[in-house]
């Protein structure tokens, strides 16, 4: 059974139909990468899973339970964390306060906090600093750290490398590998090199529908298929 299943999802934003009949299965474990051109519907898919659009048609099941009618906060409490493209941190709060918000009862599990510090040492250094004053990379670290400070079954991450320096991207990739040992990651990424280094399974979305699914290794080896499905994004992100 898939960890997450989306069936026939239709989402319209205003008068524009963004997703039509999108069907996707995300297996448990590892990194599942969603690829696609700009405007294909990748971010909308993640936001729909989190219930951030009003009543999309179709169904979303998580561990066999239909979560499509649940409130966003209830979906988050099911064990799904969302790291949006804009990172979703609270700039007016300190790093510590941002992290406390992501805990279940306002207290840190020491082992998990130690792991966060090990993955993102900068956060320990700037623990009491206002989040707005962090660099872009540090903000992204905080956003991901917040997603893993409590046990989660699934983390949705939207374009984490956007605007980051290559050295930070490398560090982020290592962190994702570590996190994916214990948690499934559904990653939306335009940077194909980064996605290729992490993904176990993948899907390509085009025009609001899944047009290809398979293993990342097979897809990475098939340059003709990449060219056909991702020609625009390959040029931008590779």
């Amino acid at each position: 059974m898939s960890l997450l299943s989306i069936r026939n999802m239709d989402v319209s934003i205003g008068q524009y139909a963004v997703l039509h009949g999108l069907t996707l299965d995300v297996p448990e474990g590892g990194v599942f990468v969603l690829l696609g051109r700009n405007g294909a519907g990748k971010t909308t898919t993640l936001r729909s899973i989190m219930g951030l659009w009003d009543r999309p048609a179709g169904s979303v099941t998580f561990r066999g339970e239909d979560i499509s009618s649940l409130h966003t906060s209830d979906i988050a409490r099911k064990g799904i964390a969302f790291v949006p493209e804009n990172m979703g941190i609270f700039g007016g709060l300190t790093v510590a306060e941002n992290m406390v918000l992501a805990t279940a009862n306002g207290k840190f599990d020491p082992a998990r906090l130690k792991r966060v510090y090990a993955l993102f040492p900068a956060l320990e250094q700037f623990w009491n600093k206002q989040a707005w004053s962090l660099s872009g990379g540090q903000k992204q670290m905080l956003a991901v750290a917040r997603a893993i400070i409590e046990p989660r079954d699934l983390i949705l991450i939207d374009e984490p490398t956007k605007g980051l320096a290559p050295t930070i991207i490398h560090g982020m990739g290592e962190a994702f590998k570590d996190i994916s040992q214990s948690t499934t990651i559904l990653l939306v990424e335009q940077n194909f090199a980064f996605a290729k280094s992490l993904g176990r399974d993948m899907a390509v979305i085009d025009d609001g529908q899944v047009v290809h699914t398979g293993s990342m290794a097979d897809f990475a080896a098939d340059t003709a298929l990449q060219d056909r499905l991702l020609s625009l994004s390959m040029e931008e992100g590779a």
Partner: protein
Amino acid sequence: MNRTMNRTLSVKIIALTVWGLLLFSPFLFQDVRQVEVAARIAVFIVLVASYDLLIGYTGIVSFAHTMFFGFGAYGVAIALKQIGPGWGAWTLGTLSGVAVSIVVAILIGLLSLRVKAIFFAMITLAAASVALVLASQLSQFTGGEDGMIYSAPDLLKPSTKLLTDAEGDVLRIFDVRMNGKIAAYYFVFITCALMFWAMLRIVGSPLGTVLKAIRENEGRAEGIGYRVVAYRTAVFVIAATTAALAGAVYATWLRYTGPDTTLSFAIMIDILLMVVIGGMGTMWGAVIGATLMVLAQYYLRDLMEVASRATEAIPLLPELLSPDRWLLWLGIIFILLVYFFPAGIAGTIIRGRTK
């Protein structure tokens, strides 16, 4: 970071100094009016701090805060008037005021906290207007426009001898009579200090962090698992309960309750000004804002009279400094405060001046 901590510490020291002065004010300022001012400051610190929970910490704009203040005050006033001056009546009146506040806050919260901030503000304004009209119209219960005069429980009556000397006269300590008046003052002080401490605990807890997160971005707070409407309703209820308790305490101190002392929009505006002067989202700022505003309300006229007399020889100035123009000067002071302390006094000190 150290600079921020030092600045925060200096604000705390200022606020704690105010609390210290309030603690000893019956001994430091033995004039009746000065003790009256001290009691009003203590009550308004709580009222302003509870309002700051809404507007400063959670970003909820409400105009119904004086309505809850009034519920508490009228609860005590009606109970003491109808049942008689005892602690049983006082407790019943306080609990009734708090219960009504909780019910009304839940109703307003659940029905309207989902709507946009401006609509919520309008709904609270309408509710506060209804409460004000009801207090005036239901004169057989509330005393109407004239309000109600009643007796406090025996312990708090000025004629009560709290401590006596060998001859049975009221004992004096540092020349202060140990009678029911001082008991009433410390009743106000202790209850207000406890409520302020409770609010400090709330904003320092994980709940306080959630409230700040909601103020900053509701959608993000939802996205990490917080039911924003539930939290906003909860904080609205907490603020309403605190305001009702402050109203009950103030009614006990004044032994008079009327629309002008509890429900009026003038008080609501005072609370707003106090929050802005102290600094939104800083509990300690409530102490500074309430203290400065109450002092200005009581002493600015006196100060201007002195200034007007001192400048008699200078043309035009005595006219400008006439005590009758105190509201104009209060407005000018407020504008200057907002200009020089854009985040309020406590807020600007803590965050540092940014140009």
